[in-house]
């Protein structure tokens, strides 16, 4: 049971962490106050009210994005596991090694997000995850963000939201698979060490 839960939990947590950052960025960039800054400077009470309102909106957005990221993480794990066996065993050329210049100390073991995918299954599942993430992010900025606006703070224009959503979701989704696989590999290595292999 534990062996089944751990990978899912790892992917969920990884997705949730990545998307929490994304959600925070989306929340601070996609909303704007209706009242001009000059009025806010003069009216402290209104400014306080606006700050509380903005905090609440950021919290709601981050929560939704965190949950979405977690779900996306689980989906990516399922997509990765559903790849055919030959893809899991076909290695990819490590193009990232050319990025290491002589003299710069290398990290060992190298994290996947630095070395790039190691198998074809990682490439394909990662690509699918990115596409799903972008759809998830864009839909979130189109449909969810307007639900959080109130009489003091409104969402920005749709094209801007779409662009921000696409960039955020692409960046956040790309790292879910390598990060989760790194964590799982580390865990397996630790267990093997403890068992004395």
């Amino acid at each position, binding site marked *: 049971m534990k062996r089944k839960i751990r990978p899912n939990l790892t992917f969920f947590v990884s997705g949730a962490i990545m998307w929490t950052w994304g959600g925070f960025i989306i929340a601070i960039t996609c909303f704007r106050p209706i009242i001009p800054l000059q009025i806010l400077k003069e009216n402290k009470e209104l400014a306080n009210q606006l700050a509380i309102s903005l905090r609440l909106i950021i919290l709601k957005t981050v929560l939704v994005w965190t949950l979405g990221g977690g*779900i996306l993480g*689980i*989906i990516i794990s*399922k*997509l990765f596991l*559903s790849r*055919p066996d030959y893809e899991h065993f076909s290695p990819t050329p490590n193009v990232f090694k050319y990025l290491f210049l002589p003299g710069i100390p290398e990290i060992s073991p190298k994290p996947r997000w630095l070395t790039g995918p190691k198998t074809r299954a990682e490439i*394909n599942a990662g*690509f*699918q995850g990115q*596409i*799903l993430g972008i*759809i*998830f992010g864009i*839909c979130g900025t189109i*449909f969810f963000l307007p639900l959080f606006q109130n009489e003091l703070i409104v969402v920005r224009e749709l094209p801007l939201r779409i662009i921000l959503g696409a960039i955020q979701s692409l960046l956040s989704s790309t790292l879910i698979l390598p990060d989760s696989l790194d964590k799982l590999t580390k865990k397996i290595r630790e267990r093997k060490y403890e068992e004395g292999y």
Partner: protein
Amino acid sequence: MKPPSMISPALIRMWGWLGFMFFGLFSFHLGNKIFGLNLNFWTSSWSQFGGKEIGLVVVSFIFAIVGMVIGWGIGTSIEVKNEKTDFIISSLWHYLASGTIVWIFLWTMYLSKTIGKENIKQFTQQLGSTFSISLLIIPFIGCLLIASLLLLIGLLNQRHKPILLACLIPSLPVSLIMSHIQVSLFRIEGYGWILIGILMPLILIPLSSLMITRDKFQRQQLKE
């Protein structure tokens, strides 16, 4: 003549449906013109029909069945050797066919709940041909779009059953947009369309998956 062994069951069904529709509609319109009945296929109801009209519908139906058999014949004569091509045809067809049925079923249920069974007739007459045409065209385009998206992303493939949760991400926005267009065409107030938009892919994806598996099995049997 020996029938080809590499046939695609989905292609046969598709040709059968095309034949059914073509022959049925063609004979209906031809009969309509010859007898000067002035019937509208999309808006007519059984209660307005007399002897001639019922006769025309029955004859059109028989012609449609003949058309379907001819369509099956055409479909059988086409060989699809590539497994992937067969899978793509099967996916597109089943998403289209099952999607349309599910869509009509869901909206009929919703309308009978919101408007009431006794008011549906009046409602359809009010909307005219928009009612039936939109109920066919929207799922037709929408379901093809859903299937194409799932195929392009690689969520639908021959190797494994589709992962429902993953497939919901691209299909939910499409089905919600479909539902929104439908409700604005029907000019109905309320948020029931969101429920239909969510239910649609939840029913469509497993149902189509079952149909595709059945087609795969039938193709395998015919090959052997």
